[in-house]
């Protein structure tokens, strides 16, 4: 996870509470978070906030596969936010795909985490998504590009929280792999997720000098 691999800009959208523009390798995603506001009567829960994540493709047409990715993002964000602190409100996170050159899911998850951090909404923990490809010869490549993904036997995306002990938050896999390779991928991705957390720290440091 070399340095120039992740590039991010926070707070670039004026009228949203939080926004992040993250590019991971060649895929870029922009996220906007509109903070706790008055919900529709039907969706409002009396003791917590409802979190609503929508995922938009460039072309705007929503296929069945995008609904799956949206479901994964929704449950990952919902777990990270302290929803009890904002009762009877709605938090809307909109993830917009700007360019998809592979690893789209991990880019979206990392961007949504940074957007939530920028929005100033209380969070239990941060989460970092890392994806890896497994080739025929059982080697594990981190952050593969498109050619490596297509030629790989399996392609995994794992998400970890920044708690001390290692605990898996989200796992989405395609292709076939054995249990052993799954455990090796977990170790590798957990190590890589530490670097993502460092990247988060650097970005927050840069943006918090002025306040």
């Amino acid at each position, binding site marked *: 996870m070399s340095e120039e691999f992740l590039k991010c800009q926070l707070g670039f959208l004026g009228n949203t509470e939080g926004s992040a523009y993250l590019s991971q390798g060649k895929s870029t995603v922009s996220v906007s978070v509109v903070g706790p506001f008055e919900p529709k009567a039907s969706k409002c829960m009396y003791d917590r906030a409802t979190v609503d994540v929508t995922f938009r493709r460039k072309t705007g047409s929503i296929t069945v596969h995008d609904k799956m990715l949206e479901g994964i993002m929704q449950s990952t964000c919902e777990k990270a936010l302290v929803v009890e602190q904002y009762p009877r409100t709605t938090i809307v996170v909109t993830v917009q795909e700007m360019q998809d050159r592979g690893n789209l899911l991990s880019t979206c998850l990392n961007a949504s985490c940074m957007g939530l951090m920028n929005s100033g909404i*209380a969070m239990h923990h941060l989460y970092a998504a890392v994806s890896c490809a497994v080739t025929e010869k059982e080697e594990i490549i981190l952050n593969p590009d498109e050619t490596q993904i297509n030629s790989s036997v399996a392609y995994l995306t794992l998400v970890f929280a920044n708690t001390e002990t290692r605990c898996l938050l989200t796992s989405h896999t395609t292709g076939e792999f054995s249990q052993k390779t799954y455990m090796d991928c977990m170790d590798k991705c957990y190590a890589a997720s*530490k670097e993502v957390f460092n990247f988060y720290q650097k970005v927050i440091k840069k943006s*918090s000098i002025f306040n």
Partner: protein
Amino acid sequence: MISVDFNNVVLPGNDVSHIVLKGDNCKRSEKTIGPGLKSVDNKIIVCNGGVLRCKDDKYFWIEYFKKKYIPAKDDVVVGIVAAKTSEMYKVDIGASELATLPYLAFTNATKKNRPDIKVGNVVAAKIKMATPFMESEISCVEYANSIIFGQLENGFLINVSLNYALRLRKSNSKLLYQLGQMVPYEIVIGANGKIWIHSASIRTTIAIGNAILNAEHLEEEDIPQLVKSFNKSLNI
């Protein structure tokens, strides 16, 4: 991981109880933890990414970039009247719900001579009661040495982030003082990031507003330079 210490960047999920409590000699109850920190079964966890601050070892909080105002008691806020009901105004103070301002919550207001404030007017008020479970209640009753509350006629309203509004309210900020020397103006800075400015002519009001907005990301030393350019633009 960068060491977790005061005036240092911390991330949500970091455990800062060992720094805050600093050994067990002082009791846990004295310490008050402010916004950005949460105490979960006797551990203090950070829940917003920002800089850990502490003030004479009793108050701990995290300074983080925030735009959405969460109502807190005894804050001075500037709001726009959104609706009128039979016995109260509904005021939009930028929080998740409209705040309620009863007719009688004005200085020496009685049932007879009610204040006539129309929908869309700007109001300065103090938050009387704020809980996450109910919409907050504000009041314009002035007490001892408070600023004048109530309706703010004509003037100009701008929105800034909450952190910048906090910095401007601190008395030692030179910007407002130097602008005041150039041209006389009135200003009310709400804790909810809404600033009301009023001066003799509309041109100067807008100039002051733009000056404040531009100064958000400037260092302290090049503020005089900004004020000079503001003065030059006003004279022609």
